[in-house]
């Protein structure tokens, strides 16, 4: 006698397709009909914001853009760039942008995209207020070069201009850099190893799992502050007051998180029931 096929015993591919379809449906729905769930700004994001705006007048910020491809598409770090350009205008801060991204030249493309499409550059002059080194190969070697001597990191900037001809780089040393910021898609260890001994404020932005790995550095104050993944970027927008894609993604994050948990519970309950049945 054949066992009656249960309705949920469908093929694996269909199961997976169903899982993905429900996810797309949930996330797509909130794009059309935002839930508007309130977002609390955490102490950590507040620390990041305070550390960034605490750069002294005429100070220098170095920003290493080493985030991953999702950031290239969404441009979720636009708020940080806007904040830094506001600091250029308000406090005559100098900005050095570099990318040591392990994903390759995508890092440089991310910087170009953010500078071209998202940032208001009025009142700033390239070469005087900010410089873009572009993507540099070598990853930790680039970080090590930065920590030793900023002048020897690269011979030309991202647009081929020799560093010696860039006004803001004249006589600039690593010791003159006041704040080091980076966004990463890998473990924070290389940045901590190379920049930690400089005893300057280091600000990190990365995925929440990478932040979890960097907690020992935060606890021992080698890492000054961090932005915790997509939520951290959204919280920064809350503080800054202008909302972009990072905030828009929060509703989808909410639903996807609940959905993921529901899937885990469902699959484990089925597994345990199947085990009991076999016993």
């Amino acid at each position, binding site marked *: 006698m054949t066992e009656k096929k249960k309705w949920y015993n469908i093929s694996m591919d269909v199961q997976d397709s169903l899982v993905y379809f429900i996810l797309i449906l949930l996330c797509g729905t909130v794009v059309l009909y935002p839930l508007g769930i309130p977002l609390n700004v955490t102490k950590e994001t507040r620390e990041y914001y305070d550390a960034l705006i605490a750069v002294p007048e005429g100070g220098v910020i170095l920003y290493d853009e080493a985030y991953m*491809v999702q950031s290239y598409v969404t441009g979720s770090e636009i708020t940080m760039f806007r904040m830094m350009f506001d600091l250029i205008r308000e406090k005559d801060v100098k900005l050095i942008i570099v990318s040591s991204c392990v994903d390759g030249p995508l890092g440089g*493309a991310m910087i170009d995209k953010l500078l071209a499409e998202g940032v208001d550059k009025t009142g700033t002059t390239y070469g005087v207020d900010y410089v873009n080194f572009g993507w540099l*190969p070598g990853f930790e070697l680039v970080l090590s070069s930065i920590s030793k001597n900023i002048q020897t990191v690269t011979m030309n900037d991202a647009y081929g201009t020799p560093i010696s001809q860039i006004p803001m780089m004249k006589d600039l040393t690593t010791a003159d850099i006041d704040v080091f910021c980076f966004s990463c898609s890998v473990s924070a260890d290389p940045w901590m190893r190379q920049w930690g001994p400089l005893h300057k404020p280091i600000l990190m932005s990365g995925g929440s799992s990478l932040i979890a790995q960097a*907690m020992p550095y935060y606890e021992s104050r080698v890492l000054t502050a961090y932005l915790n993944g997509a939520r951290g970027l959204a919280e920064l927008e809350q503080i800054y007051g202008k909302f972009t894609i990072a905030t828009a993604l*929060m509703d989808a994050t909410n639903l996807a*998180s609940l959905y993921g*948990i529901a899937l885990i519970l469902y*699959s*484990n309950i089925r597994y345990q029931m199947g085990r009991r049945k076999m016993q």
Partner: protein
Amino acid sequence: MSFIKQKEFAIILFVLPLLFLLFNYYTGIAEPAASELINWGSYLWNFSMIIGTYSLFRVHGTNIAKKGKDWSYSVVIFISFVTYFVASYVSPDVFKLILDYIQTPIMLTIWMGGFATLTMVFRGARTKSYLGVLLLLGSIFTVLRMAPIGPLIWPGFHTIGMWINDVPNMAVMRAITIVMGVGLIATLVREILGKETHYLGD
């Protein structure tokens, strides 16, 4: 010439700069030379890309010559490589077009971070022991701490999630970081003493 081909020469070539950098790290002497040596590391990194390109061409060139498995895809690899390479130098606009409309969507599709994670937990995350249950509960609290909706459902998610982050997570991360560091030091010691030869293909 024969000495250059010997393993000892490769070890000397590896160990001497290593010792010099260590010497510079502790004494601060010869800082410009050490900086230049580190820059040469970047240059060598670029050369390793040439080796990678050569390997890619050799593997897929052989596949095309022998009309091996899926050799037509090897042809696609060659064409894509040459197009991308030439475009990056000759036409930045075409390069950006390829990056924005071909490479990035393909990368995002392959990553499928959310989908892969979902399938992974749906198919493979089975709690086979009490520790597994504990692990899953911890992950649920951590996920709901990060999602803005978590504290709205129950404020305890944030409190317990932060405790998990600040106490057990911190302890484990510290322990594993120390362990990794110890492993790195051990490898460094073996390399200095010339006992580590795996990088030579042994």
